[in-house]
């Protein structure tokens, strides 16, 4: 089915899934090397559901006012001009180390069945076949209560059994291995991809299908995943965006249709 026939694009669906998971008391860290889906999700939540949520951007703005999205998330916020405060890089260091932040977003060149993310190397790190971009800030996968994973490609090259390099610890080898080495932050709580929504089973910490997007089949998800997913007996369809969500997304947050035009998916 072409995007135009669907109610929303996969990227819009992902933004809505994350926005609905946020809470009014959250302190959100918004930003990262790829900024579009996190920006839309946080702006949607803050302006529709969570007016008291604090938003701190990696570009050092606190509670920037709602502004139209630009390809560059950093520039989007700079355009807005209005904010509660502008802080500096040292302030970001502080909130990164203390677990003060409720959540952050990550994507990667690989992610695995325990939610570990690789942003660095394909192959051996000493002589990599691909050197990825690296990570600005690993801490947001370690100190906050939770973090979101938003892979923009869902295929066997990105969804792998085990990542070549753990840039961002998820549940490491599964089970209690994350807790065992003294990580206090909760880990990845939710992963939304262009195909579906996933969480991590409580005991094994293995990735589990939570819902399948409206235009996708379970077979499609299984075929495009490089490891065995846990699949419950009944898996619902991901709830499509409501009229209000779609209106705010398309009129206020993303009027130029960046989330409708993203290439990728598989």
């Amino acid at each position, binding site marked *: 089915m072409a995007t135009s026939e669907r109610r929303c694009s996969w990227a819009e669906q992902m933004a809505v899934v994350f926005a609905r998971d946020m809470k009014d008391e959250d302190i959100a860290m918004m930003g990262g090397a790829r900024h579009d889906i996190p920006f839309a999700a946080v702006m949607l939540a803050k302006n529709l559901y969570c007016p008291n949520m604090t938003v701190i951007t990696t570009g050092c703005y606190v509670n920037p006012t709602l502004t139209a999205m*630009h390809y560059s998330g950093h520039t989007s916020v*700079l355009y807005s001009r209005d904010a509660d405060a502008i802080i500096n890089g040292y302030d970001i260091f502080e909130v990164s180390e203390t677990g003060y932040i409720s959540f952050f977003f990550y994507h990667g060149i690989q992610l695995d069945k325990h939610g570990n993310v690789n942003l660095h190397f394909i192959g051996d790190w000493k002589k990599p076949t691909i050197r990825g971009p690296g990570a600005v*800030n*690993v801490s947001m996968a370690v100190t906050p209560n939770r973090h979101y994973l938003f892979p923009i490609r869902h295929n066997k090259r990105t969804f792998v059994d085990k990542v070549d390099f753990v840039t961002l610890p998820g549940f490491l080898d599964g089970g209690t291995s994350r807790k065992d080495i003294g990580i206090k932050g909760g880990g990845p709580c939710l992963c939304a991809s262009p195909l579906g929504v996933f969480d991590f089973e409580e005991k094994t910490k293995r990735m589990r299908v939570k819902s399948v997007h409206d235009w996708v089949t379970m077979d499609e998800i299984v075929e495009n995943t490089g490891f065995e997913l846990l699949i419950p007996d009944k898996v619902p369809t991901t709830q499509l965006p409501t009229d209000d969500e779609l209106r705010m997304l398309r009129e206020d947050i993303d009027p130029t249709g960046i989330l409708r035009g993203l290439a990728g998916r598989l």
Partner: protein
Amino acid sequence: MAEEARKQTRKSKLGTVEDALALVHDGMYLAFGGHVYFNKASHMVRAIAKKGVKDLTLSGSPYASYELDLLIAVGAARKVMVGNLGFEYLGLAPNFRKAVQQGTIESVIGDEATLVGGYMATAEGIPYHPIVSLRGSDVLKVSTLAKEYIAPWGGEKIIAVKALNPDLAILHCQEADEFGNGRYKAQPYFDQIIAKASKKVILTTDEIIPHDYVTKAPDKTVIPGFMVEMVLHLPFGAHPCMSTRNYLHDEAHLKEYIQCSQMSLKEGQTEALDEYLRKYVYEPEDIYDYLDRVGGLKRLTELKLMMAQGRDY
């Protein structure tokens, strides 16, 4: 008489690009300010590249971009310490990727806590700074900047990140006076801590403002002049990067740089990059010559207007 004598002791710190280059030598450790492709001392970067300095160690904010990639492109870098090195929505840093994949530079892996913790350690006068946030990451296993140790109280395993002490910090701000008091129109990112960690600081600025603008609003001074060795007046000195609130990054120019560099990823196809470097790095006589080559006052005015209007390109 005594009054006059005292006035005479305050020397202007204004310098030229040549004066600043005299402070840059082979084998030095340089740190750049700004973040992503914002507030970069880009003209000094090109001047250093043109001078042909070698064997530099480089770092900056945890998200480095044009400044490090260009110095890698011209072969000035021996070692880089980075978190992310790229161009955000415009793509990865081609020269950095090529150099790492071919093993021609030493790339030390860090991140925000590693680098900022390293600057903080120097600012605090200690050999390392304790952090916790690399736990569970392979960055801890492979980075020469981080080691685990047992905390003297509580017995918990803590991560020590190594003190970083750049020989020279090179920062760009929107306005400064002739005594090096630097002001930023928006966020200074990591510039303050980089300045505190470095042996000397060179500040480049879009605009020199009268000293009494500074003294009448001292709360606006972000980098106090006592930290600054030399201040350079370089209008549009951050181009092709953004100078926050003053002018937007030049997206078309950055794309040209990235495309020319990407072609050199393929063996033997360095003509496009060589041509780019000749035109924008080696040939320009000074910043005004460079600015003419990238479109002159017309293009620069567009970039100012786009920033002012918050306009998409």
